[in-house]
């Protein structure tokens, strides 16, 4: 049997194997592109992608440069994500605290949960247009459920004994929610925020692919119609980078909360 199952590799081995993996990946990609096995137009070589990416930072495509498209997407993401958190977290905490509210909201939430956020696109476009309102609804549909579920779980399962102790000591309802439930469920809430941010960001991209007149998804659709594969791939890279930055930001928030002993 493979001895490596239980024994960790040394740093050198890890880096070495990692480098081999990356070399094979980029090697196969370059080979397919250079050898003409796949047309260059449909699979640009890695260096062509990099050149196109740098080019897009300054040259406008579909009405704006890549950073401007990203900024417009990120702004919408920010609005929808904050809205999802601002509604989801308090509602989740209240549901964890009040059994009646839990029993009222849960069936509605369960009925809506199986609708993929992206399926809201037609109604979002119909109700709020394709500018700012429509995409915000889609991001909200993606970001809201994890916020609610995690705040609820935190309040319901972590906070229960603490709430009972606080009630016994005669603490008021508002103070219980703000000073007991919220801190007790912080860790769970932040974990929920990370999931939410990922889903919200992905839902926005989907919405922009379908209906939008600006944003990174719109740029990719235009590039697809112009058969500019390098531009489409640049958009994917940019989306991945922003998604990664959002996750890193939330991770450092998580670490900060932990460090201060809030969770």
């Amino acid at each position: 049997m493979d001895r490596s199952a239980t024994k960790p590799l040394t740093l050198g081995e890890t880096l070495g194997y990692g480098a081999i993996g990356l070399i094979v990946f980029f090697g196969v990609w370059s080979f397919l592109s250079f050898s003409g096995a796949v047309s260059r137009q449909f699979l640009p070589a890695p260096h062509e992608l990099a050149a196109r990416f740098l080019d897009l930072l300054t040259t406008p495509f579909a009405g704006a440069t890549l950073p401007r498209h990203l900024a417009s997407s990120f702004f919408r993401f920010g609005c929808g994500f904050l809205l999802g958190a601002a509604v989801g977290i308090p509602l989740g905490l209240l549901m964890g605290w009040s059994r009646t509210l839990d029993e009222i909201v849960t069936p509605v939430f369960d009925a809506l949960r199986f609708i993929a956020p992206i399926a809201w696109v037609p109604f979002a476009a119909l109700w709020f247009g394709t500018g700012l309102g429509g995409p915000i609804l889609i991001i909200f549909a993606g970001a809201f459920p994890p916020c609610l579920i995690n705040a609820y779980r935190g309040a319901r399962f972590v906070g229960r004994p603490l709430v009972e102790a606080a009630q016994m000591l005669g603490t008021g309802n508002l103070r219980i929610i703000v000073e007991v439930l919220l801190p007790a469920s912080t860790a769970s809430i932040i974990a929920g925020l990370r999931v939410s941010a990922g889903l919200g960001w992905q839902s926005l991209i989907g919405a922009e692919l379908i209906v939008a007149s600006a944003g990174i998804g719109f740029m990719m659709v235009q590039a697809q119609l112009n058969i500019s594969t390098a531009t489409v791939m640049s958009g994917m890279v940019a989306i991945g980078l922003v998604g990664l930055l959002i996750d890193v930001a939330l991770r450092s928030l998580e670490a900060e909360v932990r460090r201060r002993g809030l969770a």
Partner: protein
Amino acid sequence: MGRRSIMGFATLATLAAVWYLATVPLALISPGRFPSPLDVWVSLRQVAVTGYANGVLHDHVVHSLKLVALGFAVAAMTGVPLGLLMGWSRRAEALINPVFLLIRPIPPLAWIPLTILWLGLGDAAKVLVIWFAAFVPATINSFTGVRSIDPAVIEASRMLGTPLRRFIPEVLVPAAGPMIFTGLRLSLQASWTTLVAAELVGALYGLGRVLNVAQQDIYPGMIFVGMACVAVLGWATTRVIAEVERRAMPWVQIAES
């Protein structure tokens, strides 16, 4: 019936009543914005009997279901073994992980334009993009499943000289089973989301196509029917996975004891 289900039933009944009152007698909501229950029924009949967006409801449902099943099956058959391999062998993990980390931040939906460029608007592009979407959760959870196996179990089977061809089906897969199923459930959700998005972007048949045409026709009743179908199918397929898991798990418990 427990208190919980009575309350749930009452809430949903109240919502339905409010929906009816707000759309028909009180006309608080314009029929151009949200359909009344009657509109929904008319749309459902239309799509089920005479057809809408190139086909009747049955065709759209079968088409979407087929693509999800295909993409999901391919993702499960590649993702789970890869995750198990990466969990089992640190070398495989070190080899594959950097590439995985490079590709993983790209959300599945961002692959849609590229798959359309490569494969067009047909079924192959949808299956490819569903595969990308469903592959990641299947791999990660299988990986975590193997890593969370009690080392004592692995040591014991090694000490007893279990050959690999028995070790994998009798120790590795059952012990990682719960995590594998968690991954598969997430994969299935991702499959549905991605399929709907891909069909909304461009397709000839399917529920996303129904939604897309209904949106262009500004037909709220049909939008509602499309969304409801997506939700019901998502729910039903999740139930199937849960049932498979329930039947698989007792065997796991027997094998462990």
